C-alpha cells in the first residue's frame, strides 16, 4: 500500500491507488469503517453505519476494478447526509418525525453516485430538517467539531463536515439552503460546494425550502469536489426545477491559470460583525490569489444585511408548506391513541417536531397567512429580486466574489442555542447566495487558535467551473486543506 494514511488521503489520490490495484476497495472501506468505529463515539457525526452493505458494495467495486471497467469513482467510500432518501436504509432528517422512516427509493443524487461505483458507508447527522447552523437541533444528539470537541461543527450539514475532517470518508454529500454546506465546511476545515440552484436534482432530498435547497459535495479538496459534482450534476426528469443546462467537464479546466481573473470584494462582507482575525485570514488568502494572477475589485452588495430578514421569511414560509405533509397519516411519526383526526394531526406534529422546526413553521405560517402575505412573503420576494440584482450588477465588474464563509470560527456547544437570532447571523455571508441561486464554495484558508477558517468564493449562475479553478489554484499554492485535526481514538 503506497499511501501511508488512508484516512487523510484525497479522493483523487485514492482513485489512482484503486485503479492501479495497489489498494482494494474492500481494504479502503474497512479502514474507513474502523476509523468510524474508533472515533465516531466522540463526535456523533454518523448516525447510521451500513457496514455489511458497504463491504458488499466494496466487493462489487473490486470485481469491477479487476475487470478494468470501473468508473471515475469506483470503490470510493462516501457518506450521505441523512436528508437524502436511501432505499432500504433509514432516512431520518435527524428528526423524531422520521425516526422509523425507511424510504422505498433512492434520491437521484444517491442513485447517480451509486451508479458511479461509490460505496455508501452510512448517513450523517444534521440539524433537524436542515434547520440550524450548529447540528445542535438534531433529535439524535449534537455532533462535535473534530478540531475541538467542545465546539459545534456548524450546520446543518455538520455531521458530513465533521466526518470528512475526521477521516471517516473522503467524500460526503451535503445540502445547502442558506449556508448548510459552506458554513460547516468552514468550521471543520474542509472544502464544500453549493452548486447553482437547479444544477443538481432535488428528487429524493427531503424538502426544506424548495426554491433555495441544493445538494453539493463536501470533500478534502476542490479537485475531489469537482470529481463528485461531475456525477451529481445534470437535468433529471424527476425534478422539474433541475436545469437543462450543459454540464462542463469540471476537472479538465481546473489546472488553467487564473491570470486576470477579477475577484470582487464586497465591503459589506468585511463589516463590524466579522471577527477581526477572520478578516486577516481572508485577506491573506486573497493575497495568495493575487500572487496567482487574480485582480481584486471593490464591489457593492448593498442588501447584504437585509438578506437575513428576507431569508427568514422565505425559508420558513416554504418550510411551513413543505412540512405540512407530516400529519401522522401516510408516513412518519404518529402520536399514541389519537381521539380524533384533529388530535392526530396536532399531537403527531407537536410531539414529532423539535423546537426550532416548530418555530420556523410558526413564522412561515404567519408570513403566508391572510392579511400578512403581502407585508411579509411578497415583500420578501421583492427584496429577493433586489438581492439577485445586486449580484448581477456586481458580476458586471468581476468574475468571482470572495469573502468569509462565516463570521467567526466554530463556537462553543450551547453558546447560541438560547438565542435563535444569534444563530441566524451565522449565515449572513452565505444565505444571499441561495436567494440569488448562485454557486458558492468554502475552502480552508488557515487556522485561528487551531480552529479552521473558510474562504468563500461565489460565482455566476452555472459557473461552478470558475470557482473550482480558483479554489484549485489556491490549493496548489497553500496547504491549509492538508492540515487535519489531531483527534484521539476512543480507548487510545
Amino acid at each position, binding site marked *: 500500500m503506497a499511501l501511508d494514511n488512508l484516512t487523510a488521503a484525497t479522493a483523487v489520490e485514492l482513485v489512482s491507488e484503486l485503479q492501479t490495484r495497489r489498494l482494494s476497495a474492500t481494504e479502503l472501506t474497512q479502514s474507513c469503517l474502523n476509523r468510524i468505529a474508533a472515533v465516531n463515539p466522540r463526535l456523533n457525526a454518523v448516525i447510521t453505519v451500513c457496514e455489511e452493505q458497504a463491504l458488499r458494495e466494496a466487493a462489487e467495486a473490486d470485481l469491477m476494478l479487476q475487470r478494468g471497467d470501473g468508473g471515475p469513482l469506483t470503490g470510493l467510500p462516501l457518506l450521505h447526509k441523512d436528508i437524502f432518501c436511501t432505499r432500504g436504509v433509514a432516512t431520518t432528517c435527524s428528526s423524531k418525525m422520521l425516526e422509523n422512516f425507511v424510504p422505498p427509493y433512492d434520491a437521484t443524487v444517491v442513485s447517480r453516485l451509486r451508479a458511479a461505483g461509490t460505496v455508501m458507508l452510512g448517513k450523517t447527522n444534521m440539524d433537524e430538517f436542515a434547520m440550524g447552523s450548529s447540528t445542535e437541533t438534531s433529535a439524535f444528539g449534537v455532533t462535535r467539531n473534530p478540531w475541538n470537541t467542545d465546539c459545534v461543527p456548524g450546520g446543518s450539514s455538520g455531521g458530513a463536515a465533521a466526518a470528512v475532517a475526521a477521516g471517516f470518508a473522503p467524500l460526503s454529500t451535503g445540502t445547502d439552503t442558506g449556508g448548510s454546506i459552506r458554513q460547516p465546511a468552514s468550521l471543520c476545515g474542509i472544502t464544500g460546494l453549493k452548486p447553482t440552484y437547479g444544477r443538481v436534482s432535488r428528487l429524493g432530498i427531503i424538502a426544506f425550502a424548495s426554491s433555495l435547497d441544493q445538494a453539493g459535495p463536501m470533500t478534502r479538496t476542490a479537485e475531489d469536489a469537482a470529481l463528485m459534482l461531475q456525477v451529481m450534476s445534470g437535468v433529471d426528469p424527476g425534478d422539474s426545477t433541475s436545469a437543462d443546462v450543459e454540464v462542463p467537464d469540471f476537472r479538465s479546466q481546473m489546472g488553467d491559470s487564473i491570470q486576470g481573473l477579477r475577484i470582487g470584494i464586497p465591503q459589506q462582507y468585511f463589516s463590524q460583525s466579522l471577527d477581526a482575525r477572520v478578516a486577516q485570514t481572508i485577506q491573506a488568502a486573497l493575497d495568495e490569489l493575487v500572487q496567482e494572477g487574480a485582480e481584486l475589485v471593490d464591489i457593492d452588495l448593498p442588501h447584504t444585511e437585509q438578506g437575513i430578514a428576507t431569508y427568514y421569511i422565505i425559508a420558513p414560509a416554504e418550510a411551513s408548506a413543505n412540512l405540512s405533509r407530516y400529519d401522522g397519516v401516510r408516513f412518519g411519526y404518529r402520536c399514541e391513541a389519537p381521539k*380524533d383526526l384533529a388530535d392526530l394531526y396536532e399531537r403527531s406534529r407537536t410531539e414529532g417536531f423539535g423546537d426550532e422546526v416548530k418555530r420556523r413553521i410558526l413564522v412561515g405560517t404567519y408570513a403566508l397567512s391572510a392579511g400578512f402575505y403581502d407585508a411579509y412573503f411578497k415583500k420578501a420576494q421583492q427584496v429577493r429580486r433586489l438581492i439577485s440584482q445586486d449580484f448581477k450588477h456586481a458580476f458586471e465588474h468581476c468574475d468571482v466574489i470572495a469573502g468569509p464563509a462565516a463570521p467567526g470560527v466554530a463556537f462553543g456547544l450551547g453558546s447560541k442555542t438560547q438565542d435563535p437570532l444569534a444563530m441566524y447571523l451565522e449565515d449572513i455571508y452565505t444565505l444571499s447566495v441561495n436567494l440569488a441561486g448562485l454557486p458558492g464554495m468554502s475552502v480552508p484558508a488557515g487556522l485561528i487558535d487551531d480552529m479552521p477558517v473558510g474562504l468563500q468564493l461565489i460565482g455566476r449562475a452555472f459557473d461552478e467551473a470558475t470557482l473550482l479553478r480558483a479554489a484549485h489554484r489556491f490549493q496548489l499554492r497553500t496547504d491549509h486543506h492538508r492540515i487535519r485535526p489531531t483527534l484521539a481514538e476512543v480507548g487510545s
Partner: protein
Amino acid sequence: MPTTPADVLSVAQLARLRIEDSALDDVTDRFGRILDLVAQLQQIDTEGVEPMSNPHDMVQRLRPDTVTEGDQREELQAAAPSVEDGFFLVPRVID
C-alpha cells in the same frame, strides 16, 4: 406591533401545532423577536419590483401525461403508521 400570546396561539392553530401553557410566554418572546428582525424589510422601497419565486425565473417543465410508475402500494404503505386492506387508517371522522 407587539406579538401577543393570542397571536401565537392562532398561528399555531393554523399550523396544526399545540403549544403548552407553560411554554407560551417563551414561544411568544422568540416568535416576536424573529418578527422584529424580519420587520426591517418594511423600510426597503420595493415599489414596482417583481416578486421573485425562482432564482432563475424558470418556468417548470411539464412532462408527457403518461404513466411512468406502476403500482407500488405495498412498498409505499410499508412506511405508514397504520394500514388495513390497502387503506391508511385514521381515527373515525364521521360518527
